[in-house]
């Protein structure tokens, strides 16, 4: 496989050579035309062929009529990042407004399927062009003029499928999954795909070198997005209250959660729910509702993105200081302010670590793939209740909203950890109860829930300074002791958040540190550095905050550690520097901040430049 990859490198295209199951497709459409369904169908059909595949949707902050791109990468080596954001081997050009720009970066020998009236074939002489009269084919496949604009894209799927060798059965299955039992939609779209296939068979002679061949690499795997995985995690975590205010790209966590809760969290007999689903008026309220619920003993969560996180700042401090469990998902988009609301970034890390005024700190769980999105969502509730504090699960648009392949999720085997809660029966054995006393030396005090029928149970929670008995205090010693004890809880939390994944191959001369959605690009970049540039790298994938001891130890092992951040200011590097000043000198930023997910080439180029080498 890598032989083929190398043949393409640097534009030395040998067009005779077949590219099988290792190439990228870019679909350029207009949003609001059903392209989202057709894109998923195309991707899913390739997945059905047993080939590892990933899809990335680049969509505008708009509902209708703006350009949208979807890229699909096939990779038998399970590379899921874009090799380079500008490189693809097949363009399906359905949007005249962007066609010229879309053509520009294409490598010689690549292939373009386009809507015939655009007349693209004269624009470049080094590409393979396939003009297709999509409007005419759609009209034949769909007599209903109102629905026609929605089937055009499926006709194009048929053309692509036929040219690449994607089987019709795979397409049909993908259509069935996409439209789940909606018989008319299934018939219509299957007919449209067939129309595209028939046209390609009769009129297009294969002149490109791209092939999809059946493999058996995805058996048993699932295709899912991170937000759905998190929603499922919350369902299986036993979350009993969800409050939210809609925001891209976090909304679908809550929307999927609502769907699943209605189905799987209702009483079989009465149909009543074991989970409160509350659409709040804003994020201030969403977090207040979650804190009220967590304080009263529910497992509560909310999901938001950067602007919502900013609004939650005061509430996060309240939760931290009054010691209330809460789970907050932050699906990051690109800021500042409203920024690029439909694009991805890792710009909230520093904010989450210390959100709110005062000496606040928050545990963060950082999933890097679908299984972790599910697992960490479950764990977040246990950690929140164990530590009695708001816990963030930080993902981003790339993980949250794009489809990824994964092994099926493992059922949570560990029993739920509901933390240190005293019941009426516990209190009967006690002489006193002080809400904020560190009885066990782990910094974590015991709590009681409102409604506990015992004279010792009640206490007053307050965001103002309080002593061990939860009474208001302005005494310096008591105030300090409280902050110090809470800091001790974070020592405990270090051992509860997911540990880093560390690889130290023999001969490694440099190290790469990454987190979250950078994982696939970094792993591909490491292969490339090794295979093409002879550089072996050690690797640490950070998955939780506060950092465990392993993190510092790893940093000090290597003369240089490249810290990959999808933000401009090197936020992970900054956080590492803050906690491990001794490691400051070795940290070297690798930064990417375009709103588009990071690719392997960016990482390789920045590392080579800093290693003093040329590409």
């Amino acid at each position, binding site marked *: 496989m890598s032989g083929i990859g190398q043949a393409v490198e640097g534009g030395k295209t040998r067009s005779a050579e077949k590219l099988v199951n290792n190439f990228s497709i870019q679909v350029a459409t207009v949003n609001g035309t059903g392209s989202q369904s057709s894109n998923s169908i195309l991707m899913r059909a390739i997945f059905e062929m047993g080939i590892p595949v990933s899809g990335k949707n680049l969509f505008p902050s708009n509902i209708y009529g703006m350009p949208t791109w979807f890229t699909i990468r096939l990779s038998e080596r399970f590379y899921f990042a874009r090799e380079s954001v500008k490189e693809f081997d097949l363009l399906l050009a359905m949007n005249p407004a962007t066609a010229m720009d879309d053509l520009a970066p294409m490598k010689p020998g690549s292939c373009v399927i386009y809507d015939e009236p655009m007349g693209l074939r004269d624009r470049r002489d080094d590409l393979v062009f396939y003009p297709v009269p999509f409007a005419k084919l759609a009209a034949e496949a769909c007599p209903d003029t109102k629905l026609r604009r929605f089937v055009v894209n499926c006709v194009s799927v048929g053309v692509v499928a036929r040219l690449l060798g994607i089987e019709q059965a795979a397409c049909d299955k993908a259509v069935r999954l996409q439209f789940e039992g909606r018989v008319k939609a299934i018939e219509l779209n299957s007919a449209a795909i067939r129309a595209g296939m028939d046209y390609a068979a009769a009129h297009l002679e294969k002149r490109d070198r791209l092939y999809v061949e059946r493999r058996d690499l995805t058996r*048993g*795997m*699932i*295709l899912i997005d991170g937000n759905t995985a998190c929603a499922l995690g919350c*369902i*299986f975590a*036993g979350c*009993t*209250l969800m*409050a939210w205010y809609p925001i891209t790209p976090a909304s679908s966590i809550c929307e999927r959660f609502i769907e*699943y809760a209605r189905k*799987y969290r209702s009483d079989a007999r*009465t149909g*009543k*729910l*074991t*989970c*409160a*689903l*509350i659409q*709040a*008026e804003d994020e*201030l*309220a969403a*977090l*207040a*509702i979650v*804190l*009220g*619920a*967590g*304080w*009263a*003993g*529910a497992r*509560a969560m909310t999901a938001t993105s950067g602007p919502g996180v900013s609004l939650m700042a*005061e*509430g996060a401090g*309240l939760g931290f200081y*009054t010691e209330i469990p809460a789970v907050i998902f932050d699906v990051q988009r690109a800021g500042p302010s409203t920024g690029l609301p439909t694009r991805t970034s890792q710009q909230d890390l520093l904010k989450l670590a210390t959100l709110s005024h005062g000496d606040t700190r928050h545990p963060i769980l950082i999933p890097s793939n679908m299984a972790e999105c599910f697992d960490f969502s479950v764990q977040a509730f246990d950690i929140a209740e164990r530590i009695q504090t708001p816990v963030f699960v930080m993902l981003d648009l790339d993980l949250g909203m794009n489809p990824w392949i994964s092994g*099926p*999720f493992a*059922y*949570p085997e560990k*029993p739920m950890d509901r933390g240190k809660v005293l019941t009426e029966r516990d209190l009967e054995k006690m002489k006193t109860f002080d809400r904020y006393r560190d009885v066990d030396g782990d910094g974590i005090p015991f709590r009681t*829930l*409102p*409604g506990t*029928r*015992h*004279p010792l*149970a*009640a*206490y*007053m*929670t*307050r*965001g*103002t300074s309080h002593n061990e008995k939860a009474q*208001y205090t302005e005494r310096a010693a008591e105030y300090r002791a409280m902050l110090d004890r809470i800091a001790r809880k974070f020592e405990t939390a270090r051992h509860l958040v997911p540990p880093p994944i560390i690889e130290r191959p023999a001969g490694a001369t440099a190290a790469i540190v990454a987190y979250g959605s950078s994982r696939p690009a970094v792993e591909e970049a490491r292969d490339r550095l090794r295979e093409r540039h002879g550089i072996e790298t050690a690797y640490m994938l950070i998955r939780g905050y506060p950092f465990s001891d392993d993190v510092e130890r790893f940093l000090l092992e290597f003369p240089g550690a490249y810290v990959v951040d999808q933000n401009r200011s090197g936020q992970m590097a900054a956080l590492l520097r803050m906690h491990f000043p001794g490691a400051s000198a070795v940290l070297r930023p690798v930064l990417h901040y375009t709103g588009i997910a990071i690719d392997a080439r960016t990482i390789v180029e920045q590392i080579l430049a800093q290693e003093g080498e040329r590409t």
Partner: protein
Amino acid sequence: MAKIVSGNVAGTGKGRQAGGGDPVNRLGLTARDYEGEKSTLCPGCGHEIATKQIVRALWEMSVEPYRIVKISGIGCSSRTPSFFAGRAHGFNGIHGRMPGLATGIAAANRELLPIGISGDGDTAAIGIGQFIHLIRRNVRMIYVMEDNGVYSLTKGQFSPTADIGSTLKDGSINDQEPVDCCSLAILLGCPYVARSFSGDPVQLLALLKGAIAHNGMAFVHVLSPCVTFNDHEGSTKSYKRIREAACPVHRIEFVPAEVAAKEPDRARRDGRDGTPRELHLADGSFFRLDPLEEGYDPGDRARALERIAAAARDGRLLTGLLYYEPNRLDMNRMLNLVEEPLANLPPGKTRPGREVLDEIMQTFK
């Protein structure tokens, strides 16, 4: 039937402690048992008087202390939860966010009786959004807004309930239209809207007991003068001015359920002019009303708003049960929640089984 006057011994006046000590309620608790820490409010503060009536209402209504949760925002008023129901959990949160906290608490445990305490700044300024949406959700709770027309804890700036022309101690005059939270609550469909005055403890007590008996959100607006920052000549929120302006729409008497039970099949009785004389509450108790504002009907939303506005134009402040609508769907029913409090659900009821995950995984294969 014995006439029960507010301020009598709790309930039917039966239980008394053996040995003739302090009177006890149906739970055998004295009024003391509903008190809290020693108050740190200024002597004479309106909030202090309101707090005393809350203690009394909870005691007389024999509310189980463990069922009570006290929730507040920030302000002098929001500090008062420390001063009542010391046996109950309390949550003094952040400025303007009491409604959100209360929503979460009410959803997590439907057996609790949340009592929210807020100020005019906490509600009508920073918290106005949450106030509005709390009403829309119709959270089953009692919401007491202690209104003194200023931000007292920050030393006396105007709040949004200050009347046009009211002055501060330094002589500055308010030119902005005040927010009338009662009218707003009625407009939004809050099913129980009452207004009273710290200077009229009898009326306030009856309205608080009705709020406890009611099933849904009960908003109780208490004019509660600040003796330190807003009780001077020129202030429209002084004891003197409120006493002059307050016009009860009816003399109101609360008849508890155990007394009402002796007269079954009691229907709404209207007076000769068609105004109601009795209003029935969710727990079987009722209000007996003796109209003072002719034709004022707490069941007529549009007319109530008109009457309140018309009175305000004449410098009169209508008080009493201003609006009442039984049987409105409350949040927990809107959310279609199981009967058992969510907080008490065992893992077996909240974590679906292995087969469910398998089934879901199949849909992604």
